[in-house]
């Protein structure tokens, strides 16, 4: 079982890209240094032949150098090779070790063409290793390996096996002052290379630290959110319970209240009529029975689904007409209804509210206002549905927001609508519901 290493991260945000950018700069810099060294070496070798000091050079060098133009080309080939290897991402330790070994060999090649005068490309290998998130023990081993390699190529150890002309002998073609300048530039480049590497390491450490911090903060936030969510869930359950209880109460009031009001009014009429017109009374009682039956059906529905009654099976407009019709028949109150807009587009919940508002208003007008005439108008004005129910009852100068009005308000609030009422001349209720489908179109 091979242990995995996390691959180099690619999903950087802007902050994380800085180490990667510095790494690129480091690579570019090494490229320039190698180009610098190999071009100068190449020119020096050309110069020896050109000035007729080849024999002297060979005596000093002790071996035949490659042809002058080969040196920069080989240097660039080796460097390109190193670049490709650096771009290869490894998934586990054996792969990483293989890659590092290949990189070592290529680095030896680069040292070879630069006459072991430049070994700074080792920092590239180190920088590459640092990009992997490896645990510290393993990372220390890798760092140790790269350092050992660096010592190997710096410490004249490899020269025992690899026959190479030292850079200073190749460059001794130049006059002493020029040579000093060239070597000085090389030293400065070498130093800058190290500085860029240190900068890279610092940036990398900082970015890894800030990443850890960010993860910590995010973790805390997540915990808090979780607690809130739990609280919210229990609250929500409690609220749902309350809402359901309220709805139940509303349903009972709406269905039973309406039916019972009709029945009471009808029975009071029957009591008065019974002696005068027994036939009419009979008729009246039949109507009352009808109301009671509707009531019982409503209750059954409510119990069964806790859901609206007539609406369930029919369209809202028919339901309203049926409501008006049955009320007129059972109570003898004259009700006129004027609907100027198409109500079929309203959803179930909106239909429910419209129906309940009308139903409740009629009930209130008969029960509390003793009205004999009720006017209902339903219109659409500017994307809103306006329901106005007015009666000729006693009205109410000081409206106590009774049970019915309170429920009506609640229902309208849920749809984003509102309710106005006045009890000066009879009683007028004005309900407004925003039309959702109308706005969409």
């Amino acid at each position: 079982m091979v242990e995995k290493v996390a691959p180099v991260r690619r999903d950087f945000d802007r902050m994380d890209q800085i180490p990667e950018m510095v790494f690129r700069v480091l690579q570019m810099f090494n490229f320039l240094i190698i180009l610098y060294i190999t071009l100068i070496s190449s020119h020096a070798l050309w110069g020896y032949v050109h000035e007729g000091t080849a024999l002297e050079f060979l005596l000093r060098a002790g071996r035949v150098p490659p042809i002058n133009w080969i040196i920069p080309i080989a240097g660039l080939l080796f460097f390109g090779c190193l670049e490709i290897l650096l771009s290869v991402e490894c998934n586990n330790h054996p792969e990483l070790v293989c890659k590092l070994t290949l990189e070592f060999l290529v680095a030896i090649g680069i040292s070879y063409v630069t006459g072991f005068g430049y070994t700074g490309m080792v920092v590239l290998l180190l920088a590459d290793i640092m990009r992997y998130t490896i645990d510290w023990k393993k990372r220390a081993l890798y760092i140790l390996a790269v350092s050992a390699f660096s010592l190997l190529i710096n410490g004249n150890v490899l020269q025992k096996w690899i026959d190479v002309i030292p850079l200073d002998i190749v460059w001794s073609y130049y006059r002493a002052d020029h040579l000093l300048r060239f070597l000085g530039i090389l030293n400065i480049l070498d130093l800058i290379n190290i500085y860029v590497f240190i900068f890279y390491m610092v940036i990398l450490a900082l970015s890894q630290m800030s990443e850890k911090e960010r993860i910590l903060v995010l973790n805390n936030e997540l915990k808090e959110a979780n607690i809130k969510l739990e609280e919210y869930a229990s609250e929500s359950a409690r609220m749902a319970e309350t809402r359901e209880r309220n709805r139940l109460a509303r349903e009972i009031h709406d269905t039973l209240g309406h039916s019972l009001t009709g029945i009471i009014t009808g029975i009071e009429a029957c009591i008065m009529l019974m002696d005068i017109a027994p036939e009419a009374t009979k008729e009246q009682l039949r109507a009352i029975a009808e109301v009671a039956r509707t009531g019982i059906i409503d209750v059954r529905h409510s119990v069964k689904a806790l859901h609206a009654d007539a609406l369930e099976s029919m369209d809202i407009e028919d339901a309203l007409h049926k409501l008006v019709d049955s009320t007129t028949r059972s109570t003898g109150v004259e009700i006129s209804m004027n609907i100027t807009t198409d109500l079929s587009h309203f959803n179930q919940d909106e239909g429910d509210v419209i129906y309940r508002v009308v139903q409740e208003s009629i009930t209130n007008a008969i029960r509390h206002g003793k009205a004999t005439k009720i006017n209902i108008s339903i219109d659409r004005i500017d994307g809103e549905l306006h329901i106005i129910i007015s009666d000729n009852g006693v009205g109410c100068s000081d409206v106590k927001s009774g049970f019915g009005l309170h429920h009506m308000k609640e229902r309208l609030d849920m749809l984003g609508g509102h309710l106005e009422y006045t009890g000066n001349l009879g009683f007028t209720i004005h309900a407004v519901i925003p039309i959702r489908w109308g706005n969409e179109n």
Partner: protein
Amino acid sequence: MDLTFFKTRRFRVGISVIIALAALLITTGQYRRIRFSKDMVLTVGVFSDNYWGIQNGHANKIIDNAILRFQHEHPDVKVEYESGIMKADYSEWLSEQMMNDTMPDVFFILGGDFSTFAQIGALKDLDNLIKRDPFFDPSAYYKTAYDSGSYAGRQYALPYECAPNMMFVNKTILDREHIAMPARDWTWNDFYEICRKVTKDTEGTGIINQFGTCNYTWNDAFDANGVSLFDEKGRSCDFTVREVGDAIAFLEKLEGLNSGYSVSERDFSQGNVVFQPMLFSEYRAYKSQELSIKKYSDFEWECVTMPAGPSGDNYSRLDTLSIAMSEETSNQEMAWEFMKLLTQDQAIQAEIFDYSDGISVLPSVTQSEETIKQIAEDTGTAFNLDILESAMEKTIIQPRFRGYDNALEEVGIAVRSILDSKSNIQMEQIIWNRTLNNFLKSMQSQNS
């Protein structure tokens, strides 16, 4: 086209390995081994004037004839060389060819350059070719000439032409002073005695104007006394041995005769010096009819073997012009054949006596009747081949190693310093032994 493959890791690793190998091939020069076409052009590095420094107008004659022979035997091979390179520029020219990667397949190599070029790895190690070739016979050469192509125990070159170091004698002075020609086995004592006798003021001006010897160097003295300073690999030297001390003491004695006057070659050519070591090639050149008036014409002169030291023999050094193969050659087999033709072919080696001043590296050629006749004709004297023969038999060669030339320079400095200090030679030897060994050690560790 689906490009995802080119982004895979496997592809990237593969391509980087290929690039690295390509870079390695071109930096190490191994790419030259990859040959796309079998071009059979053999290039030869030659210099256009005479190795022995005496112009005779036959500069490229032998090589041209050899090329004709070779192309006749191998019609599919073309042999080319660049003419017009002088011996003085030849080493530099070779170095430039090396650095430009245009090294000839086969090239002449000057005696002084051999260890340098062998050291930098420009010469092909011939041991494998020698072992593989049943027709190649190392014993056909003079042994010393053959050994002069060996470096650190391996053979890197074949000898082409050589000349032993010999002692030139001004016979006119000897006759005037009633001294007999030294014998072939003469010693330092004889040498010193003659020198002592002839060193004098002949004109009565109070200034010595006739001398015993010039240019008899520490190298000649060490050789004569059988000193072998360095070990095979050049890691250490033994400068404290008695032979070295004797040689230095002898040099001191010789120099003492001249009362501080530094005798030069000019004195010899003016006829005022009895002995001067010179290469045999010079004897041949100036003894030949057409050049005999140019130099040394005011007196009669002859040559003998070098004098023997008390612990040595009549040893003399051998200067050899060799032929080597480039390490980078792609025509190894043909190059080897051509080298063999130049160095082992009797007819071509015999041409050395026609067109050059050295002697053939093959004893069978040098000792042939025709050669003896030729030399006699050239020099106009009945040349005693025995002297040449005995000189060739007693030629020696020091083991060569990395930095051999630098080491020799250091020894020269040491000897000069001891001679100049006039203090106890043995003490100085011990002090300089330390210095020389340190020098060798630092040089070998630097080179390894």
